[in-house]
């Protein structure tokens, strides 16, 4: 099994979720993150003092998938999260040795 992690733009989450669902992915875990990279942050001004915020809001998505699906899921993530503008994010894949479903204690593929 693999763990595919994607960092995407927040407003693309809905599209990504829909794309994964149609592919058959039935679960995922989402969290808030901030990104630092080519995409620039923004500037705020309070009583004349300027603050440069260089972290950009992102969403992190984690999906556990069967080995065979990993590449497809990466494809789908890239396609559905793409806007073509700087800051669209990254997708990476890590090997997973063991998965368990807490509710039932099932292990491995059945647990996903």
């Amino acid at each position, binding site marked *: 099994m693999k763990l595919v992690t994607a960092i995407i733009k927040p407003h*693309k989450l809905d599209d990504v979720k829909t794309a994964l669902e149609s592919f058959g992915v039935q679960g995922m875990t*989402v969290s808030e993150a901030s990104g630092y990279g080519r995409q620039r942050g*923004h500037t705020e001004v309070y009583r004349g003092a300027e603050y440069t915020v260089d972290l950009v809001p992102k969403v992190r998505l984690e999906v556990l998938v069967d080995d065979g699906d990993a590449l497809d899921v990466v494809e789908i993530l890239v396609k559905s999260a793409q806007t073509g503008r700087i800051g669209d994010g990254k997708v990476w894949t890590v090997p997973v040795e063991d998965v368990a479903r807490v509710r039932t204690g099932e292990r491995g593929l059945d647990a996903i």
Partner: protein
Amino acid sequence: MDTGDTAWVLMSAALVLLMTPGLAFFYGGMVRSKSVLNMLMMSFVTIGIVSVLWTLFGFSVAFGAGGNGFMGDFGYVGLGEAMNQMTTVNGAVYKIPLLVFSMFQLMFAIITPALISGAIADRAKFLGWSVFVTLWTTIVYFPVAHWVFDFGDANGNHAGWLAKLGVQDFAGGTAVHINAGAAGLALAIVLGKRNGWPKAQFRPHNLPLVLLGAGLLWFGWFGFNAGSALGANGLAGLAFTNTMVCTATALLGWILVEKLRDGHPTSLGAASGAVAGLVAVTPACASIVPWAAVLLGLVAGAICALAVGLKYRLGFDDSLDVVGVHLVGGIVGCLYIGLFGTGRVAGAGGASADGVFYGGGFGLLGKQAIGAGSVLVYSFVITFVLGTVINKTIGFRLDPEDEETGVDLFEHAETGYELAGVGGGSAFHAAVSTSHRTEAAKGVSA
């Protein structure tokens, strides 16, 4: 008609109305973020319900001109008859329109049940609460207000029995605070403890909101107390002064106890102390001199700071300390009059009986104890019965899972905050599929 008196009582009525939202924020900031809206709603719906009852029959039951010692008559049903009269129902001829007096008193009838809601935070069914407010205000508040606040006509005919007895309660230590505090105790027992209490953790979710509530309460309370003079005069000035200094010292008294006991003076303590002082000075503000109000504040602040621990010892989940602050604070204020009440304030229009320390003997203290005790017992018993009946019939206590989900979501289908920062927030915005299922919205998709 005196326009100055009328202006002050109009303003005071508005100030006391503001106290109920103030209370809602004071309470709302203290609960967890998943209960804040329900806490606010318990106060707001009380404004709605009690205003209707008041117009229909509440003002009549409390102040109807031809009643007996226990309740008024029904002359003011609908308030239509009150439209063109001056205020003669309160023991003297006040130079303000009767409708203005009626509105001022309505605000007291609203905040009293609202105070009770703090005892049952996080776990009450909204329908149960709404029915409770309707019944409680009718059976408990309106009659008790008559007992305490209605001094009858200029000769004292038709006065409430506590008023006639000579119990001193200028602005509602018995009728409002002991009344609400005893009811809070009863309801906390009837509804039982929250899941996990006292082990689980119920930190206040928004302390600035608590302090906003306390600030609005303090501001509004000048209407409550000084407005009870029903005119802009020396008596109002005295009540205002005592209210100010007692509240200030109660704030100090509470945080001093905290500093000594826990090591840190807290902002929740400061807010709580201020409210405890406001409660304690409410009955007493027209009976004592300013330095006695300074002392009352210190005493009330310290006692209430200690009293909020009682619930752990006795095992009832009075979630936001209605007992520790309003019942205890109300009793302290009422009895204090028996000790420090003085005819020296009569020159400013205040009460004229002397308490123990002014050589008046124990007579006044005894009357104060009767006043406090009878309201306490009446309110506790009736509330216990009302609460039990409601819980057994339509239901008053939330189911445990729904309490876990959170009362805001379960009862109101709402979430208090959606505060995620710029953009970051949209993650979760976007993660929501909206569908407008209103009639109108159906029109769109059709």
